[in-house]
């Protein structure tokens, strides 16, 4: 078998990247320590642009939606650009202590794996290309996209792709973890909230009034009775629940956050309608204020398994001795795929406590994670996505 040119130097890159660990970790830390809750990413975006400018990126700007973008000019003007993307926002508000702890082998801090590592890696790419003396035919667009997670509903990337004036050759989406992850398809998804509110009573606390938590419990029980098909693969994930005020008080408000995921958009819609009926039924029967609100939605989209980009990523991971794990990604990936742009989401390192304050990443695997990303960018630049 002839080895593709983009595979030849991958293992050398791992050592070269380890030799510049200070610059990479400094980017992760300096950017990650700036709080960037969804809708308030401006400060981190400004620093991201400042870092890119400091690394002599050819063009540093923000698009009309304030997504910070750097463009490294390629040698062939006729080739469409390659996008490398990381979402800027995190789950943590400004009042959380964002100081990261760096040890010999690990880094820890809130929002580290989701997605300070991705943003730090993105900001490091210009210097990495420079040190490794890598040149590309395509322009490389380094896009930090805002308003991605939760109620952000991927607004940043939606706007960026909607307004981008040229075709796009391919894209790589960077996530902190998990190294070895290969996401090339997105499930159809509706993210929604069921809220039970307004059950407070004036004056004396009535002993037998409705309890918002029990109302939601009834909703959950009825959803669990819904029949989920094996094909198309479908599921409802209950991801978040809040409610009540005191241990000894009947809860007068409660909220349930959930996602419907399926390989089929029609099935997502069907399940959503079923849940809507459940909510309306309980609202009517119990006489409570129960609402169902959609937060975001995505269409199912995928690259086929045999797509040259998917095959290339698998070869790259094999050369780097990484075990590939395929998983769906309900993220920027789905927006690229919806625009018929070949794209994959990759993880950079290994870690734990992904979405907790103590999110921790191992440093050593990161160098393979970055080498894999360079390999994929080179593969796209050498044409694996062209004409697909």
């Amino acid at each position: 078998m002839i080895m593709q040119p983009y595979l030849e130097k991958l293992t050398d890159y791992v050592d070269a990247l380890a030799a510049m660990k200070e610059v990479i970790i400094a980017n992760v830390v300096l950017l990650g320590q700036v709080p960037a809750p969804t809708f308030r990413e401006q400060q981190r975006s400004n620093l991201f642009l400042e870092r890119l400018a400091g690394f002599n990126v050819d063009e540093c700007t923000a698009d009309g939606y304030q997504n910070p973008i750097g463009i490294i000019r390629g040698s062939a003007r006729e080739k469409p650009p390659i996008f490398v993307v990381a979402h800027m926002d995190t789950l943590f508000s400004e009042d959380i202590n964002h100081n990261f702890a760096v040890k010999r082998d690990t880094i820890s801090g809130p929002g580290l794996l989701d997605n300070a590592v991705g943003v730090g890696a993105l900001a490091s790419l210009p210097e990495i290309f420079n040190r490794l003396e890598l040149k590309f035919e395509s322009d490389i667009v380094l896009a930090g996209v805002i308003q991605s997670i939760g109620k952000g509903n991927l607004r940043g990337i939606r706007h960026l792709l909607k307004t981008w004036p040229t075709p796009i050759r391919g894209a790589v989406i960077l996530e902190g973890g998990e190294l070895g992850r290969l996401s090339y398809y997105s499930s159809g998804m509706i993210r929604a909230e069921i809220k039970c509110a307004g059950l407070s009573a004036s004056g004396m606390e009535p002993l037998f009034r409705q309890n918002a938590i029990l109302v939601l419990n009834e909703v959950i029980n009825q959803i669990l009775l819904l029949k989920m098909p094996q094909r198309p693969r479908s599921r409802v994930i209950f991801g978040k629940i809040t409610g009540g005020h005191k241990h000894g008080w009947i809860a007068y408000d409660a909220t349930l956050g959930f996602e419907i995921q399926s390989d089929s958009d029609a099935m997502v819609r069907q399940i959503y309608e079923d849940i809507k009926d459940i909510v309306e039924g309980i609202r009517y029967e119990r006489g409570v204020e129960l609402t169902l609100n959609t937060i975001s939605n995505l269409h199912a989209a995928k690259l086929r398994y045999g797509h040259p980009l998917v095959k290339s990523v698998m070869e790259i991971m094999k050369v780097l001795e990484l075990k590939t794990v395929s998983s769906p990604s309900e993220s920027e990936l789905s927006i690229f795929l919806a625009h018929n742009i070949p794209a994959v989401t990759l993880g950079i390192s290994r870690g734990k406590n992904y979405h907790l304050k103590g999110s921790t990443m191992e440093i050593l695997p990161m160098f393979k994670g970055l080498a894999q990303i360079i390999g994929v960018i080179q593969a796209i630049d050498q044409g694996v996505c062209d004409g697909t």
Partner: protein
Amino acid sequence: MAPNWLETNTFHHSEFADIQKLVEMKERNHHRISLCLPTLNEEKTIAKEILIIRSELMMRFPLVDEIVVVDSGSTDKTEETACAYGAEFYSAANILPKLGHYKGKGENLWKALYVTRGDIIVYLDADIKNIHHRFAYGLLGPLLMNTGIKYCKAFYDRPIAIGQSKMRATGGGRVTELVIRPLFSLFFPELTQIIQPLSGEYAAFRELLEKIPFPIGYGVETSMIMDIYTKWGLDVIGQVDLDRRVHRNQDTKALGRMAFAIMKTFINRKVQLGLIELKEKLYSEMIQYNLVKNEYVPDIYRIEGIERPPMMEIPAYREKFAER
């Protein structure tokens, strides 16, 4: 009182954010810059300090020439961590061993003069949780860009909320406001213009540092300011606003011991300068009390007030730096 000093010798780090310009000034004047981190069990914060300084001020911009860690005998992974990120690590006890070893920050700073090679030395505490390279370039800026300033001291914002608005406080920490500022106001009113005289971050030319004595403990910052002021005047001193520093919190008793050491240093220095006369010797024990099983038990902390002489007086040092 020099009325213009606060205006002319106070800077903000953002004035020196053009690091390339600082590098050019450094090269033009053939300076060599050392950064020293005194440590005692700092494994939690040391790595971040070293890697950010190395990344930003050594690899990207060649402003700092070396990072040296001088350690008081850490029992955690300070050494292993510092070395993993490329710093030179020294145990203070192994530097000039014939001169013995005392445990204390001042001892580390003094011995650092022997192992560092720079003609400008930046001292940063190793427990800065929100480390940023501005801590180093901000302190170096006035030394490199202003020919008169030879010693630059950090100060930070300590914003406090008042009603809906925020107000920028002008003071230092508790020990500064309760001990040092009253003492300076009583004896050296000009020095009250130094906003945070006890900050652990400062940079200075070796030619100054090698000519002053170093108390081995907490008093080192106080004595350094007093000695530089009395030898060279206020105009060689600058101060720079580094915005914000996240400190490690110390309890009141620890601050009490710090205050004791500082007052002792201050009074001793006044005596040495011939400015006051003591009729009795100062005691060397700070006595605090703990309530144990309904009884007050004294907790005695001995603070000798030992000082190292100016490094210039050490023959081994003079020999090592003879060429300079």
